[in-house]
């Protein structure tokens, strides 16, 4: 396991390097010249050139990449074009809220999906099952932003149960309850999409387990139905689900970008959108890098959990 993880880590580093290079190309080749955004509209060509030099954009691409990489390895993510602040400071400020939003969403999503998926499988082909699978199908098909707008309209504008956005009330520091109050709607939006998907995985995994011989053994022992379902069923059904959690992370990041924007959540997602609009190359690079690290790390963590949950893997690796 240890050896495997070290290998995974090294491969991950290489992948990361490739990602930085590719995103550097994509970001720099995307249309729009950042320099035009930082001068007045009647600026001369010389002024533009000066601005490019100030932003470090006048050198050839490869050299700029090498420069970026060298700084990055030294822990320097550069300066934001737009705010003239160190990128790392900006990220640090935004990471917390995003982490809070995504983490809560993920937990809520599984708290919804696992019981519903299991229940749906146990009551297979009943009207409850049809209701759950039908609703989850709906949840998968509705785009995040649309659901967000519906939620805002219904729960914030019409019913006024929740604020329309932000992390706390205007001009307030935000106590715990106030934050929770602001958190609920965006979390529900993200959690709906993720759990809708997850319910279907849990359900089908569970149904597959019901056909396993060892469940028949459990029944033949005279165990109570709930013991059969939980001790023998759910545990085994969730093992393949662990790998799916890994694939949820990119979706979570994508969902967070859109949802944060809709709910004016002061996280990385909102920063991403504004940085794209401002052609803020260094910030975009840093965010891409952070997302890539998050995804790679999540996948590695998934493997570890998978191995921990399944004794067949856990013991063979020694």
């Amino acid at each position, binding site marked *: 396991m240890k050896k495997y993880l070290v290998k995974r880590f090294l491969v991950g580093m290489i992948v990361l390097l490739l990602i930085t290079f590719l995103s550097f190309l994509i970001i720099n080749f995307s249309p729009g010249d950042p320099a035009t955004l930082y001068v007045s509209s009647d600026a001369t060509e010389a002024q533009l050139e000066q601005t490019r030099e100030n932003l470090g954009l006048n050198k050839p691409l490869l050299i700029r990449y090498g420069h970026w990489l060298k700084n990055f390895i030294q822990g320097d993510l550069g300066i934001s074009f737009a705010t003239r602040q160190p990128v790392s400071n900006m990220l640090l400020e935004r990471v917390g809220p995003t982490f809070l939003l995504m983490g809560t969403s993920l937990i809520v999503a599984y708290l919804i999906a696992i019981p519903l998926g299991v229940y749906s499988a146990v009551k297979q082909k009943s009207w409850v099952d049809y209701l759950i699978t039908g609703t989850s199908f709906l949840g998968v098909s509705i785009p995040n932003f649309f659901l967000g707008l519906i939620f805002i309209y219904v729960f914030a504008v019409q019913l006024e149960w929740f604020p329309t956005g932000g992390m706390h009330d205007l001009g307030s520091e935000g106590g715990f309850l106030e934050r929770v109050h602001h958190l609920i709607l965006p979390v529900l939006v993200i959690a709906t999409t993720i759990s809708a998907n997850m319910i279907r995985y849990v359900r089908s995994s569970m149904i597959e387990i019901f056909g396993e011989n*060892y469940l028949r053994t459990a029944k*033949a022992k*005279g165990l109570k139905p709930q013991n059969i379902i939980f001790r023998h069923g759910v545990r085994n059904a969730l093992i393949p689900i662990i790998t799916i959690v890994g694939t949820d992370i990119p979706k979570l990041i994508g969902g967070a970008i859109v949802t944060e924007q809709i709910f004016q959540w002061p996280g990385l997602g909102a920063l991403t959108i504004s940085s794209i609009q401002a052609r803020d190359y260094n910030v975009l690079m840093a965010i891409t890098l952070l997302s890539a690290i998050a995804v790679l790390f999540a996948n590695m963590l998934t493997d570890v959990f998978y191995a921990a949950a399944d004794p067949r893997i856990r*013991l063979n690796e020694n």
Partner: protein
Amino acid sequence: MRKKILEVKNLEISFQTYAGEVHAVRGVNFDLYEGETLAIVGESGSGKSVSTQAVMGLLGKKNTHIKGGEILYQGQDLLKLNEDDMQKVRGKEIATIFQDPMTSLNPTMTVGRQIAESIIQHQVVSWGEALEQAEEMLGMVGVKNTKSRMNHYPHQFSGGMRQRVMIAIALACKPKILIADEPTTALDVTIQAQILELMNELKTKINTSIIFITHDLGVVANMADRVAVMYAGKLVEWGTVDELFYNPQHPYTWGLLASMPTLENLEHGLYTIPGSPPNLLHPPVGDAFAPRNAYALEIDFKKEPEVFPVSKTHFAATWLLHAEAPKVTPPAEIQRRREMFDKKLMRREQV
């Protein structure tokens, strides 16, 4: 006469499928006496598993229809019990081991817990005591180093060892009846012999009756006291091992015996019963075996044979036993067996 512990009467079971109703078990009758081993033999699909899983209440609810009959366990009809009461019978009074030891154990639970789990379910003991009993059980089925083995997972055991664990689970609560559904089919021959020997040994130690399901007649002689032959959802012949092996009456039993690889049989080339079993979606009228039967009478295609007694313990459902039936000469192999049977009887009379 020994006490009957289980009486299955007129059991009829069918499955609702997209193609229609599958009449898997069509009126099965058998008794099980205390302390005996009853073997049920028959081709694949004859309904052996279905009828015995019905005894355990293991058939799924969804498409299964138990159309009639009784399953009397110590006089109590198990088919009338509710799920809660049936749960108390399963594993405690009647236990079972299955054909496939590789997939019948939970891969993510230690073997010790899997045994202890059924003990704690049926007895008033602490978890610690249950584990102790489980370890004892593990030793009893011939697993070495029980202390460390208790904490191992199924994949750390070989096929034969896993079947031993299955036996430990089944016998953990000292059940009155053990249903062994082809327990050795998935194992290689030497392991097979060890497992059968273990079952015989534990049977006397724990004093259980065994229903032993197999399609290998070769192992029946060493295991069973009595044999029942099943065909297309019905029992066609039953009797003691000697009666079945040396004085068989039903042509299907003849076919089974003639296709059994013995030294003599191998010399003359192994026989196979022609044709294939009937489709149970549309069970035939008359004797279901008639179309494959070289000795079939006209009536076999029209009317279902009655059950004729051959002795007090031996019965067969074939029109050949009817007083007016023509006398037929069974295959050479069966005649040879009958001669041996007669000699045996004579010897017994002399004693």
